């Protein structure tokens, strides 16, 4: 693991040792080829938590999360047709720079500050979230794990800027993809003798885990074909088209063609990659039908319950029931496999019913354990343990060499997404605020130095927030929620800029503010269960509302003037 990570970082530093201008530092001389752009865009989006959480999500909920990404390839095509040519024509450094030319300085500064707040806090979480899981499972000190990720990222991002981020991401993405692919193959290999891959898929299917596509139209259902295709489309157009951490990746391309190819590459690879990661989770699920899984995957929580005199007897009792349940379920699953091999439908139906009933009991026991954890920690511990499923499997059941590779995957993912965030934060700070509004008359070397200092500053802020994140638990949730609540309105501002040419800055600014109030109201009503709308739908609602309101407000301004 250390060898892989060290080699990638050294390669990045060596490759970018001759950075002499701010253009090179922030835009990487605009000479990247499409495969570097494509992998860099993918690596920016895929954080470490993606590879820790997603298999766990499939373990619990099946494959339906794959639908979340259905709108992504369509969004890539949309960006290639409508957005990239505009950014290239204007030769902008940041997405927000474009808004000044189109509207005014106020809109540019406002959106840039929104980005800095949102991403500045999120960068800390990108480091903290995997660190807390890795430190729990590996027994490492949390702050040491945070420092291990953070200091390395800051080191090569400050030294090499955008190009260092992109070239290291290329290597990191290769490690990530090959690591997950090898994990999937070895998982199948780890199944008990007599259980083939086909049997494993058959069992998972009968137990309702292979539910990839659901065409039902239900606003309350988070993952359906329609929420993924429509809600996901707006979310991904917003994320890839207006979030500087992504925009910067493809603006450093050699030409418009290279950038387009990079995004289309992402559009082709992303959905199959997510499917692969989810499928790994399904194989982990089948594996734990034959090998007894821990009663709770977060070992620290389990220790807490066992060491508390109030909860220790209850957990012992639950463990005995759980052990017995596993033996019964294993026998029922074996019966199911025999029935599947013989294609004996009545026997398949009977054994499936039996396994499902035992699965329900299993879920009930796990829920009781969660209640005990809450009791033992007096409500302080997080009882959800799906993020720990995959890493528990990796540590306990994969060969030692592969454990290192998977850890390298997780560290690579953490570093690659953090590096993009720091790079984008520094660029936006320097280009949209510092150079534009604060210190506008200095030479190139001054801004190069300023860019490095701002990267270091944002890295320090991210590390600080990561180290103290456990003190701000509610803030972490708030940051995640704020992100999803703002994307629709921000996209709306950009859509007006691209397609509604007669609308000016005041109308769009007012429309965005009104829309945010409406979105927050919908979110509050949903939170208090007055209405039911899955959060993905807030993206199209926000975007379309800004466009309509801006049109109406502009019309009124024209009427008043006349």
């Amino acid at each position: 693991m250390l060898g892989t990570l060290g080699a990638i970082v050294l390669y990045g530093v060596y490759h970018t040792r001759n950075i002499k201008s701010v253009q090179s530092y922030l835009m990487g001389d605009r000479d990247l080829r499409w495969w570097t752009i494509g992998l860099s865009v993918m690596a920016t989006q895929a954080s470490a938590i993606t590879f820790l959480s997603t298999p766990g999500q499939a373990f619990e909920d099946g494959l339906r999360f794959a639908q979340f990404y259905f709108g992504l390839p369509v969004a890539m095509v949309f960006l290639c047709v409508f957005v990239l040519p505009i950014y290239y024509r204007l030769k902008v450094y940041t997405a927000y720079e474009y808004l000044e030319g189109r509207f005014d300085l106020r809109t540019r500064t406002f959106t840039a500050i929104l980005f800095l707040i949102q991403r500045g806090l999120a960068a800390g979480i990108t480091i903290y979230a995997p660190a807390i899981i890795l430190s729990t499972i590996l027994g490492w000190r949390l702050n040491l794990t945070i420092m291990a990720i953070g200091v390395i990222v800051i080191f090569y991002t400050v030294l090499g800027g955008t190009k260092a981020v992109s070239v290291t991401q290329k290597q990191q993405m290769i490690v990530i993809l090959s690591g997950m692919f090898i994990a999937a193959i070895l998982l199948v290999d780890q199944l008990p003798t007599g259980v083939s891959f086909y049997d494993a898929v058959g069992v998972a299917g009968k137990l309702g885990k292979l539910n990839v596509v659901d065409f039902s139209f239900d606003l309350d259902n988070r993952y359906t074909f329609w929420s993924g295709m429509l809600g996901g489309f707006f979310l991904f157009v917003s994320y890839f088209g207006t979030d500087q951490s992504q925009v910067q990746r493809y603006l450093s391309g050699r030409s418009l063609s290279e950038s387009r190819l990079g995004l289309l590459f992402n559009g082709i690879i992303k959905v199959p990659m997510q499917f692969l990661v989810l499928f790994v989770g399904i194989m982990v699920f089948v594996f734990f039908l034959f090998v007894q899984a821990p009663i709770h995957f977060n070992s620290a929580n389990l220790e807490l319950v066992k060491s508390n005199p109030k909860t220790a007897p209850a957990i012992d009792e639950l463990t005995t029931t759980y052990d017995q349940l596993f033996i019964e379920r294993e026998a029922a699953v074996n019966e199911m496999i025999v029935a599947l091999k013989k294609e004996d439908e009545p026997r398949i139906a009977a054994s499936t019913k039996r396994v499902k009933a035992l699965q329900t009991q299993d879920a009930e026991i796990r829920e009781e354990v969660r209640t005990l954890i809450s009791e033992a920690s007096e409500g302080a511990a997080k009882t959800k343990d799906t993020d720990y499923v995959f890493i528990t499997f990796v540590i306990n059941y994969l060969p030692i060499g592969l454990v290192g590779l998977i850890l390298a995957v997780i560290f690579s993912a953490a570093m690659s997404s953090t590096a993009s965030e720091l790079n984008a934060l520094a660029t936006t700070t320097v280009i949209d605020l510092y150079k534009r509004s604060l210190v506008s008359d200095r030479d190139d070397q001054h801004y190069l130095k300023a860019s490095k200092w701002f990267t270091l500053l944002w890295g320090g802020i991210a590390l600080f927030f990561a180290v103290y994140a456990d003190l701000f638990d509610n803030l972490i949730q708030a940051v995640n929620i704020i992100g999803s609540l703002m994307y629709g309105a921000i996209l709306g501002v950009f859509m007006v800029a691209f397609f509604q040419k007669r609308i000016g800055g005041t109308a769009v600014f007012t429309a965005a503010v009104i829309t945010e109030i409406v979105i927050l109201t919908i979110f509050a009503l949903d939170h208090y269960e007055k209405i039911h709308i899955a959060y993905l739908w807030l993206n199209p609602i926000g975007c379309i509302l800004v466009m309509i309101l801006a049109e109406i407000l502009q019309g009124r301004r024209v009427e008043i003037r006349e």
Partner: protein
Amino acid sequence: MTHQNPQEEEDNLADAPPILGSWNRMYLFVLVLHFLFIAALYWFTHAYA
């Protein structure tokens, strides 16, 4: 300052894609591939249900 229409400007910025001859065909290729993948997933959902 010379004025070009958006299509002319774009032609100056972008070369033809390395395969399929035009960008519209490239986009169609990506979208068709995506919908074929979804169709395969739909089959997968039902084949093993």
